[in-house]
């Protein structure tokens, strides 16, 4: 799966080329933080996770083995670290769970909803109706613009599963929005 430009970049990093490393960092930092924030629901936590991964990457650059694309590798590392952190959180006090829930609710707060158009808030609601795994994969495709192969590499699933899950997401969302979509279509085509 690994492609030559990635190999060049990896080689440069392995030889301690800071500039190349910085370029990689700058290229992926924002999107990795967004991705982590989607799981952790907190941007500060997300930044911490992503920074720790880059730091570890740099420190272990000489021994690191990557058999997927660099992008998939970074996302996978972020994904796993976030899940570990969540697990850790769950073991901690109920209080923390309450905080977790608080963030989740805060996430779609009333003011935020007001900024969204009617269509967006309906789609957002439909998105929340998806089963967890299905929603995650769908978001990875639509929010992070990851290719099917990349999602498969990150989650360690087959590309077929990704295909099925995103198809399933589409099906469920269409059903959820069934009453609303014809109106939208009517508006879109009669502008």
């Amino acid at each position, binding site marked *: 799966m690994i492609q030559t430009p990635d190999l060049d970049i990896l080689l440069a990093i392995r030889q301690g080329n800071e500039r190349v490393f910085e370029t990689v960092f700058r290229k992926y*930092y924002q999107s990795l933080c967004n991705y982590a924030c989607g799981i952790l629901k907190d941007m500060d936590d997300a930044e911490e996770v992503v920074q720790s991964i880059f730091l570890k990457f740099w420190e272990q650059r000489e021994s690191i083995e990557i058999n997927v694309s660099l992008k998939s590798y970074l996302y996978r590392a972020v994904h796993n670290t976030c899940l570990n952190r969540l697990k850790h959180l769950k073991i901690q006090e109920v209080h923390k769970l309450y905080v977790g829930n608080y963030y989740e609710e805060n996430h779609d707060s009333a003011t935020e909803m007001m900024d969204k158009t009617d269509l967006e808030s309906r789609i957002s609601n439909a998105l929340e109706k998806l089963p967890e795994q299905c929603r995650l994969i769908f978001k990875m495709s639509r929010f992070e613009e990851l290719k099917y192969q990349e999602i498969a590499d990150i989650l360690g699933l087959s590309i077929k599963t990704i*295909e099925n899950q995103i198809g399933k997401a589409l099906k469920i969302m269409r059903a959820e929005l069934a009453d609303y979509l014809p109106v939208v279509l009517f508006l879109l085509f009669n502008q």
Partner: protein
Amino acid sequence: MNQDQTIDDLLAKYFANETDTHEADIIGEWIGASGDNKKVFEQSKVIFKSVPSLKNQKAVNVDAAWKKLGISKNNITKTVDIQEVEPIVKFNWLNNFLKIAAVLVVLFSLWFVAAKQFVIPQNDVISFKTGNASAEKILPDGTKISLNKNSSITYPATFEGDTREIKLDGEAFFNVHHNVAHPFIIHTQGTDIQVLGTSFNVRAYNTQVQVIVKTGRVRFSKNNKEVILEKGQKGELLANTATIIKSEVEEQKEITQGKKLSFEFEKTSLGEVVEKLNQTFGKKISFSNEKIKNCKLTASFQDEELENIINVIAETFGLKVYTQKDLIILSGEGCGI
């Protein structure tokens, strides 16, 4: 379609730009099969196009984060530089200059390498040319084109910008995917044909261009001159002039006449033959028995009705034909491999 692949899987793949041409063809065919299918397609499109805008992107401070990592030692070097005594400054200036030059070289080569790897080629131009047989093509926007023999079209891999523009040489029948926001423009022999979702035929060999409209409205122009053509009207550009003559088409029949069909089969399996026929005629021809697919057909058809083609096939392999609306079933014993 694979057995465990639903149409939703395929649609999702299509909107995520993951389909191969075979899958895109299946979708094109499926959309064309019924109004309901088209509706589902449009609905899915709205979902896919709207979802990314929900992304809750909080901008992070990348510069600060990079500094926090403390990998780059440049900051420390800089402060040391300032404290150095005069004579060394010159040397450092050169040193810095070299550093900057080195960085630029690295960044440039990185950009060069990365541009190939990470940036999706958006301006890729696809050319499609027919030889002795006509062919069907579905464009990235869902527009269906039946390209006549010895004709060619050129179009971008993805339509960017406000308009969808393609080039045509020769003759083609267009069924343009409806999209008010992005007019569809065909450039051919110095003329522009602009449409908003409609079907029509364009014949443009040499410098003579003819447009016949089946449904909708078309703006046909050269330089500053233009005519608006409506359903059942014909516009003709006289060779080597900018004069466009507008006339009514006598019979609706003439409109589809442009869609000349020819098929050449040489030891082609019936499975493939039927796939081709289904694609071209928009019917559903199937078999009562999988073995029939193995039969190898060698024949050529010029502007034949589907019925005649089917009869020739049935005659050749001793098959019976059952027809019910769009569904045609061939039954019989079939052939071994």
